[in-house]
């Protein structure tokens, strides 16, 4: 057992931090909050040049061939820097699903484009049912002419507005898990995409599918077994999101401690007051706990274990802890932390999005309760 990063991971982390400090300062994050696309192709290309988009893609498909755990090391930094844009959906939802379920042909056709930055891929899973369970998928895919006709409404689809491919989960049978994944082009006839305005100023969309035709060759994985992939994506997504959250939570802690040292009230830095000290200590405890429970999930998944329990525990814990950390950070910052020009609120708004993504604490606690044999 060794809960520290190895040298290569440490280097990856440092270089990621350096890159993001230069390319994704808070001014950029703030700018992108108001930008229609929410990111710039320039930065996207630079990210591709860093090899990040193909980090976990095997070398034969144009990637770097590092592990999922390595990816989460990187995500901790993108979370800390609040990197805007479709990085997370593409590397976690897009490439991980294709690597998991794609045919050799699909991998060859799609992964190199993702790795080199030409292709952005996301997944359309949720619907107005807002459920992370297979029963929540009500969109239908009906076979016709050797292909499929998709109908339904997808909600909360991350970065659909800039994706060229969207992995759509649709129902192909009546049993709860009769779900199939389709690699639909975003500009397919019958697909209407509308941006949703959200608390985190990220770019989630509503996607209405009206008789969208997808050829059989764009079925991802086996028909009727898509939920197996989705389950893995939820676990990966949860662990990956936890890594982002750990990065954010650490940043909130750092910024709060810094503020507590500098803000003077009653003739001394507020950090000299025990109430503020204990707030900061509680935040530090939360961040420390988040770090290892998140790392365990990422590491076990990376090692090829199902790690359903570990991922559930991580997401359940980190979802709540990050929210607590932000709430306490706000309390220490006082009014200034609520202003748009302050970074505090950038993090706390994203904390809410992250709490919900891939299931909130309640969702994962039900998994945990099964895991402890209840």
């Amino acid at each position, binding site marked *: 057992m060794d809960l520290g990063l190895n040298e290569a991971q440490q280097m990856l982390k440092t270089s990621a931090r350096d890159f993001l400090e230069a390319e994704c300062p808070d001014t950029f994050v703030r700018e992108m909050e108001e930008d229609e696309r929410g990111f710039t192709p320039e930065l996207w290309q630079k990210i591709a040049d860093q090899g990040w988009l193909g980090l976990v893609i095997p070398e034969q498909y144009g990637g770097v061939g590092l592990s999922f755990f390595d990816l989460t090391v990187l995500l901790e930094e993108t979370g800390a820097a609040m990197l805007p844009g479709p990085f997370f959906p593409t590397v976690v939802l897009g490439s991980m699903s294709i690597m998991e379920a794609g045919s050799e042909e699909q991998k060859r056709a799609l992964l190199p484009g993702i790795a080199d930055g030409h292709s952005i891929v996301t997944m359309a899973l949720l619907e107005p049912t807002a459920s992370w369970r297979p029963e929540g998928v009500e969109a239908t895919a009906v076979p016709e002419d050797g292909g499929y006709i998709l109908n339904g409404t997808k909600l909360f689809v991350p970065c659909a507005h800039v994706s060229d491919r969207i992995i759509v989960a649709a129902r192909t049978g009546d049993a709860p898990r009769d779900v199939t994944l389709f690699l639909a082009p975003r500009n397919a006839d019958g697909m209407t995409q509308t941006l949703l*305005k*959200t608390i985190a100023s990220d770019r989630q969309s509503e996607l209405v599918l009206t008789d969208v035709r997808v050829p059989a060759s764009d079925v991802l994985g086996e028909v009727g077994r898509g939920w197996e992939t989705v389950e893995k994506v939820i676990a990966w997504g949860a662990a990956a999101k936890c890594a982002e959250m750990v990065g954010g939570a650490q940043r909130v802690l750092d910024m709060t401690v810094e503020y507590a040292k500098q803000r003077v*009230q009653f003739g001394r830095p507020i950090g000299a007051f025990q109430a503020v000290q204990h707030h900061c200590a509680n935040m530090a405890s939360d961040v420390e706990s988040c770090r290892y429970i998140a790392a365990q999930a990422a590491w076990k998944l990376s090692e090829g274990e199902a790690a359903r329990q570990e991922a559930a525990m991580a997401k359940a814990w980190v979802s709540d802890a990050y929210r607590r950390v932000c709430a306490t950070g706000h309390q220490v910052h006082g009014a200034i932390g609520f202003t748009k020009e302050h970074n505090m609120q950038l993090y706390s708004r994203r904390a809410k999005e992250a709490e919900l993504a891939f299931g909130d604490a309640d969702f994962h606690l039900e998994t945990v309760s099964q895991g402890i044999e209840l």
Partner: protein
Amino acid sequence: MDFRFSEEDEAFRREVVDFVEAELPWDWRNHEVDSEEPDGLKLVRAFKKKLADKGWLTRAWPREYGGQEASHMQQLIFGVEMSYRGIPVDDGGVSMVGPTIMMSGTEAQKRFFLPKISRAEIDWCQGYSEPDAGSDLASVQTRAVEDGDDFVLNGSKIWNGAHSGAGWMFMLVRTDPDAPKHRGISFLVAEMNVPGVKIERIPCMWGADRSLVTFEGARVPKSGLIGEKNMGWYVGATLLDLERSGANYSARALRLLEDLVDFCKENVRDGRLLSDNPLVRSRLARAAVDIEAARLVAYNVASMQSKGQIPNKEASISKLVGSETLLTVYGLGMQILGMYGQLDPESKWAPLRGRFEKGYMMVGANTVAAGTSEIQRNIIATRGLGLPRG
């Protein structure tokens, strides 16, 4: 002891509710009005005039100043019914400035200001916080120097609603920079529409603004000095106590809870109504109890005031409990709304008109405004329980 409203009080309550239901120019169930924005203030001001015509804004005040000499309980009832419906009638004029003037103002000031407040003829913004004086209010640095019949103001005031067009500010200013911290402060009311006053908006996370008001040699008449010069800390301290009542929080929270209950009875998640989910039931019930506890603590403050008793730690506890409860209810709402909770009011998919998303971002400011929860706890411990100062 008597937990029921008197017949008179209940009749008044009924009258208020009926009037609001009939006269409110917007649908409070579906629209939030933000009086810290110019449009919102205009709307609120118009309705406040109607309420003022009924004499309700200052119902507990003496008749000579525009009041109806009703009990504090009726004042509370009025405030609760307004808060419940999200009608922002209180800009501090009735709850803070008026009582302060009544307690410390000259007869001339009383005759000038009180009827104006009572008739909703002036709008107020607060001038307590400064960039370097937040929790440590007594370190206000805005200078007021006497010059003839005027004070000349230099400095800045922050987190107020001046940009909404509120015409008057009540503020603490430093009139003696050499005196000990608490002894060189004066309590001043002044019009904002004078040369040398700059108002800048500070955009906040919930999509609305607060203001930074900068005074650069602004001249305001000395007649706005309330109480003795250099004694403003003690004049204003009373006012903070008045601000620290919590009835508005629990009233607001109750309405949110009712919205949530309705939402849960109408929305299905994972194959069942949210209202059939035992976790949701338990949490909503617990919130209902929290609200009830906060409500009663606040009512006790009014009950004490009605009997001429001066609430002390009771008021701080009420503020603490009330604001923390509201925070809890918003957090619970966001938890129950789940993925939908993150949607902005502008989104067509936003449930309950996005009220929770916006409020969730705003509510944290409640446990910071008018003394953070930490400051409240300090006050409860030292002033209320007699623990030694740290």
